[in-house]
């Protein structure tokens, strides 16, 4: 058991990503172990979203490697990527719910795609279960435009979880939400993580969220992993680059 706990499920090595002449990631390294929640802290525009979009293969880095379950995402073809992506969930910053579809259709969409031969009853059961997990079963036939920001985030979370991913990437899950709703989302993240034994990367600069959800905090600065440690460790730090996040 101890051995499997220490297993690295994501290994990022010397990742470099540029847009034009702007270098966003400049030799980023990170190892993530099974069943841990890693929070990535960094200023707005520091490349946090770019980093997790590289992990799921939405962006192709210039160089470096990203091993997920010991396979390099950056070397995969489309089919292999689809395969790998079915084990990775992604909660988008803007939720990315399809606004022309009902909540039910939104949740069915990834199911029908990734598990082609799934039967109707099973789809219905999984959709209800996922919505029940976030207490929103009553919104099943509604459109995304009828829901509030917090509800949308919960639906998006339900959609992300529906394929039972082993890794979940959260892009600023609490940004733009009021403190009460933020706490709700954090609790859901923790609850679902316990239930499904997932590992996650959470991008955030909401220190409450960082405190509540993190096992490990990584500070992204100038495209590199500036430091890493637990919330308490970083909180004690006297380094001004670290301190500014705790003020």
């Amino acid at each position, binding site marked *: 058991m101890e051995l499997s706990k220490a297993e690295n499920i994501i290994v990022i090595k010397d990742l470099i990503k540029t847009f034009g002449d702007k270098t966003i990631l400049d030799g980023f390294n990170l190892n993530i172990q099974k069943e841990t929640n890693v929070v990535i802290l960094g200023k707005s525009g520091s490349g946090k979203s770019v980093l997790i*979009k590289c992990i*799921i293969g*939405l962006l192709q880095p210039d160089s470096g490697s990203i091993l997920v379950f010991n396979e390099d995402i950056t070397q995969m073809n489309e089919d292999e990527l*689809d395969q790998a*992506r*079915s084990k*990775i969930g*992604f909660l*988008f*910053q*803007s*939720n*990315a*719910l*399809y*606004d022309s579809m009902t909540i039910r259709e939104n949740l069915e*969409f*990834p199911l029908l*795609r*990734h598990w082609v031969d799934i039967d109707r009853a099973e789809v219905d059961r999984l959709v209800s279960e996922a919505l029940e997990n976030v207490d929103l079963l009553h919104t099943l036939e509604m459109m995304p435009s009828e829901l509030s920001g917090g509800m949308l985030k919960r639906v998006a979370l339900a959609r992300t979880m529906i394929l039972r991913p082993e890794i979940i990437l959260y892009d600023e899950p609490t940004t733009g939400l009021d403190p009460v709703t933020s706490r709700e989302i954090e609790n859901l993240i923790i609850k679902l993580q316990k239930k499904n034994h997932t590992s996650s990367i959470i991008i955030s600069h909401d220190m409450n969220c960082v405190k509540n959800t993190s096992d490990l905090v990584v500070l992204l600065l100038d495209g590199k992993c500036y430091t890493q440690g637990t919330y308490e460790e970083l909180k004690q730090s006297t380094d001004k680059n670290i301190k500014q996040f705790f003020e």
Partner: protein
Amino acid sequence: MGLVLTMQLRPSLVDYGVESQLPVMVGLAIVREIGPVITALIFAGKIGSSIGAELGSMKVTEQIDAMTVSGIKPFKYLVATRVLATTLMLPLLTILGDAISLFGAYLGVNIRSVTSFSLFFLQVFKSLNFSDVLPAITKTLFFGFAVGIVGCYKGFNSSKGTQGVGISANSAVVLSSVLIFIIDLLAVQITELLGLN
């Protein structure tokens, strides 16, 4: 359009003493050029901009990324369907537009001289050859294709923010309108080369 065209052409034709050719002239102008191009331009303004705006907002709210992550090829799912629809629908709309325009022309003819409905259309259709209609409708397939592709391309390449969506919608209309004129010009050359005139 048909009505205005008729009214404006009449004085010149009267000058040359060929007023009786009015239905033929107007019919040819509408079916060969004015119907297809004007319909396509309106189509670009309405459908091109809405495709640009729709895909643009899907892009900036990360819905397109979400599809990719869910294993859907956004190109197949979003672009192919839209381009197919615009390509097939524009010819049908053009035929409808032509019909309305010709009816307008009939009214225009009737303002000054009385022609029966059947006589007018008999004259129009007698003067129209297969070689007038076919190239005209064929080019609208390309117009429709251009409107669809440009709308999708601009939408997909929207920059961040709601402002980016407006820009994509707008530039989709401008670029597809310009393309319509270019394709139209090419179409004339090609029909000529093929000796269909």
